[in-house]
């Protein structure tokens, strides 16, 4: 297994102001983005936001209304799908039901030069790579969901494409299987070093698997960043809301300082917020701040902190085994905030209506426009 390059690779795919209309419907509204060679890239967004459409414009199944799509520096406008250096794993897997597993995997080799033995060897290798050694002679329709998925992967990877496109490849699998396949896909991607572009509406999946994620809403990319930045420094409330849970409080930007902003947050008072905590670059006036549940901590009897402390009442307790989620109504704030605590020994789960102290740090806040 090779280490991932830490330096960004050269650009593999470039979108320049890509627009797509289905009749009157504006499905892609000015997509401009670059995807680097060798990265695991995800398109994340709610249903109907245009993820599949964007993926299909890369594959060549969907023509674009205006703009440019470049793959490896070449304009794809005149290149049909069967001549693009991309291969796709379909959501339904699209395994050819009348062929065997080996015939499915070797389908793309039909048009390649090379001896029969050589092709058979490549099929065997591809099957081995996805953990289906010895399945070649099976009828393709007699496979489980997870096995089909692997056949589809092997079939797409055997041609060594520059880019592998995956449209919600894991959505048909059960939870356990999905988690296994996520890990396997990451390993496989590192092994082959091919650019993977994954479409998903599952934010957890995207966070786990991707080097970088483009979050899409209504045909536009709202934010394109690595998972950590996306999670810790979302640019808009919409992105913050879509990825994980975030508490929002109304706020007022009182002053713009050298380091960032002085903000009056409802119920929490004046906070100093750095430039980095405000990726959406607010201009002043009414705004809102957000914070993740895990950035709040319940202080038990006798615990002290250098962070700031608010008091409140527990309104709801949701027990998850390793974690407990609390909805706490802080004094001076109308809506309860959600916070999460690891369940460690000596840390009892609080009851509803318990009075408690909650510590928080201004450094964990995100300021939104």
């Amino acid at each position, binding site marked *: 297994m090779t280490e991932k390059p830490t330096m960004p690779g050269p650009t593999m795919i470039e979108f320049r102001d890509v627009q797509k209309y289905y009749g009157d419907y504006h499905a892609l509204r000015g997509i401009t983005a670059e995807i680097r060679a060798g990265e695991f890239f995800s398109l994340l967004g709610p249903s109907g936001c245009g993820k599949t459409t964007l993926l299909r414009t890369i594959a060549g199944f969907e023509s674009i209304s205006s703009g440019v799509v470049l793959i490896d520096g070449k304009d794809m406008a005149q290149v049909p799908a069967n001549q693009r250096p991309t291969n796709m794993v379909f959501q339904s897997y699209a395994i*050819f039901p009348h062929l065997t597993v080996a015939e499915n995997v070797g389908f793309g080799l039909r048009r390649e030069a090379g001896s029969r033995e050589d092709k058979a060897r490549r099929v065997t290798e591809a099957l081995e790579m996805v953990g289906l050694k010895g399945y070649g002679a099976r009828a393709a329709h007699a496979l489980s969901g997870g096995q089909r998925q692997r056949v589809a992967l092997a079939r797409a990877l055997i041609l060594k494409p520059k880019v592998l496109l995956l449209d919600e490849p894991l959505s048909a699998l059960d939870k356990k299987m999905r988690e296994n396949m996520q890990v396997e896909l990451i390993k496989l991607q590192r092994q082959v070093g091919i650019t993977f572009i994954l479409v998903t509406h599952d934010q957890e999946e995207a966070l786990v698997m991707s080097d970088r994620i483009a979050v899409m809403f209504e045909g536009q990319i709202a934010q394109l960043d690595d998972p950590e930045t996306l999670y810790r420094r979302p640019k808009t409330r919409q992105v913050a809301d879509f990825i994980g849970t975030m508490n929002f409080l109304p706020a007022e930007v009182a002053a713009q300082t050298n380091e960032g902003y002085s903000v009056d947050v409802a119920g929490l008072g004046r906070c100093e917020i750095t430039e980095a905590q405000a990726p959406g670059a607010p201009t002043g006036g009414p705004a809102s701040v957000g914070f993740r549940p895990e950035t709040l901590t319940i202080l038990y009897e006798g615990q002290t902190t250098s962070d700031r402390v608010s008091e409140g009442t527990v309104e709801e307790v949701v027990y998850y085994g390793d974690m407990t989620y609390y909805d706490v109504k802080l004094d001076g704030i109308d809506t309860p905030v959600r916070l999460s605590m690891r369940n460690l020994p000596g840390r009892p789960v609080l009851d509803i209506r318990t009075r408690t102290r909650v510590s928080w740090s201004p450094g964990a806040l995100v300021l939104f426009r």
Partner: protein
Amino acid sequence: MKGGTGFRIYAMVYLVFLYAPIVLLPMFAFNNGIIIAFPLQGFTTQWFAALLDDPPLHDAVRNSLIIAVSVSILSTTLGVFAARASTRFNFPFKGPLMGLIMLPLVLPEIIVAVSLLVVLLGLGVSLNILTVILGHVLVCTPFCIAILTSAFQSLDRSLEEAAYDLGETPLSTFRLIILPLVMPGIVSALLISFTISLDEFIIAFFLAGTQATLPVYIFSQFRFPQAVPVIMALGTILVCLSILLLSIAEFFRRRGLARSGAKDTGGFL
């Protein structure tokens, strides 16, 4: 259980009504007597022997086979094009056009036959096997389209895209992926149009000119009492052939299903 008995009796009566006449066919085909009535007169194979020595009958069988084979191939081919076009592409006036093509399905056949006759005579075309083939293609194509449309519709579009994505051309995708997967539908369409053409009477009667088809010939023979047992023998052979043909078709359909792993949704048997 009460409702069950009632339904069972109904089913019995229904089956007897449907199949009893067909059972009578071989009975009188081997009956040593000209009159079709009980009691049976004893066993004979002379009616079958008479079939062998009947040149006009042989001509009619040959005509019918030529017509049925041509019609099934032509209308299935047309059906494949139409079904593919209507399930995959959108074009102007698609609805009305498809409706127009399917119209013969509901038009009284006698109307179709008479209008065709008028037009053909008006054009000065001489009536022969070709004109019957034209007429039959007109009525068989809608059946083929109906069968093939459901076959094409059940195809997952991403199968085509996958083949295309893997470097095949639209044409080779059609040959390698689509055709094998709709093959059971094509076999059904071939068979149904063959069967429809083979026993179609009205159009053949109007358009055949001097080249009678089998049904037309059989109809003409009913004027002669001594020919009736011969027709019974002919009918027996036809029934056996139909059963054989349908069994073959069903065999292929099931094998196609098993190979593609699809769920069996009945088919025509």
